[in-house]
């Protein structure tokens, strides 16, 4: 079957898609977007997290046909677009690098998308910087087997604080 949808602002079409394929498979194997990771493929680890119509989902559990006509945003869509040389990491991505929140990196794309969502839903809606309990609950569906999560929490807090500072007129912190 043919599946057409929007990915990171661009209309895409995949042909000869088998109904048993997941959205994750279509993104990675047919559309050349391998940022979303296929770790557990059971919806337990969150490594495949993408935005689907503005909310985060496990793309491994979305049947390919269900993406028809919808808008997907992947980890590749978080960085500011532009020529490759001019491309800038998003504040969340920068914070993960600076805080040392990345070890093997396999869970990182999912964590970045889910963190982006948390910051959008809190600081982005005029709210405060989420506390540790809120951060942990929002990221409960993203498993990391390397870090022990401490540096990830630091990174999320750092990204949220910077986004709040920028929002409140201080410019980039």
């Amino acid at each position: 079957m043919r599946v057409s949808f929007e990915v990171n602002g661009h209309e895409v079409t995949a042909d000869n898609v088998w109904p048993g394929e997941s959205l994750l498979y279509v993104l990675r194997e047919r559309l050349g977007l391998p940022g979303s990771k296929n770790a557990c493929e059971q919806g337990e680890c969150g490594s495949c997290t993408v935005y689907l119509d503005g909310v985060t989902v496990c793309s491994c559990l979305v049947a390919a046909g269900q993406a028809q006509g919808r808008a997907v945003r992947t980890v590749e869509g978080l960085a500011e677009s532009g020529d490759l040389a001019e491309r800038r990491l998003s504040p969340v991505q920068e914070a993960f690098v600076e805080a040392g929140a990345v070890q093997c990196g396999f869970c990182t794309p999912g964590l970045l998308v889910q963190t982006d969502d948390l910051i959008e839903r809190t600081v982005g809606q005029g709210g405060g910087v989420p506390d540790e309990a809120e951060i942990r609950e929002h990221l409960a569906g993203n498993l990391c087997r390397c870090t022990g999560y401490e540096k990830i929490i630091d990174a999320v807090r750092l990204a949220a604080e910077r986004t709040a500072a920028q929002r409140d007129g201080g410019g980039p912190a």
Partner: protein
Amino acid sequence: MNPFDYRRAEDAAGAVATVAADPRAMFLGGGTNLVDHLKLGIVDPDLLVDVTRLLPDGVEPLPDGGVRIGAGMRNSDLAADPLIRRRYPVLSQALLSGASGQLRNAATTGGNLLQRTRCVYFQDVTMACNKRRPGSGCSAFGGYTRYHAILGASEHCIATHPSDMAVALSALDATVVVQGTDGERRVAMTELHRLPGDAPERDTVLRHGDLITAVELPDLPFAARSRYRKVRDRASYAFALVSVAAAVDLSDGVIREARIALGGVAHKPWRATRAEAELRGARPTEETLRAAAEAELAEARPVEGNEFKPTLARNTLVATLRDLVEEERTR
């Protein structure tokens, strides 16, 4: 995974007719359980009929004071709905205690009700399981039974229903609206799921091709102070060892009505009618609450490996009721 077809349904009647006519066709909702089962080989359909775009996905007030929840409404949207949070907080709390943010964003109300057990032997196609392959035996006895039933089980199956939402809906006396080939009918939430008996392969009373289109909640003013308490092996993103959904109508120091359901203990959300009967008309002393919990768990039959659950269920029930009574007194 064997090949199958995928079709997006245009209307409920057409979807019902299509699935009813094909024993190997299945409805597809949010996919969080079914897509997983396709990969694990637990189900083997020849056709998936996607109903997510035709089902209602909002909450609307009903003329009789109740509310109707569309079966296509996402768990996260239902949990965040202002009307639900204000009038039926137990439902919102139950939803938020289940799964992860990503899964709640995809899972639908109807699909949540029809999700299958998380019994590890049901999910492992190399193991005997009467629910997955009738007559093959039950591998859970003598196995890993931490999440298994202590009430209403049978020698054929000790699996539990995993939904938190369904426990709250049972306590709230919800009604499930079902579209079948003969038209629409209504099923009490407490009657939707079955006890296993000698046919554990049947989770519910629905017939093949029946489509859940909505869930209705009655007008229940005292549910505005209701609670869901869930005990699990980690602080988040785990199924219930035991959970309690409860609402108590307390006036002049006497319990007029109580609505209680337990999760994690049976093949269906376990409506605690014995505890409710003990509480009706009684003063909410520690002894009364304890007696109600004792009455409900009197028939509990743990198996090797989950002997802790009757005590855990009693204590969780008492703690939930105590919190509700305290909340009533101090408001």
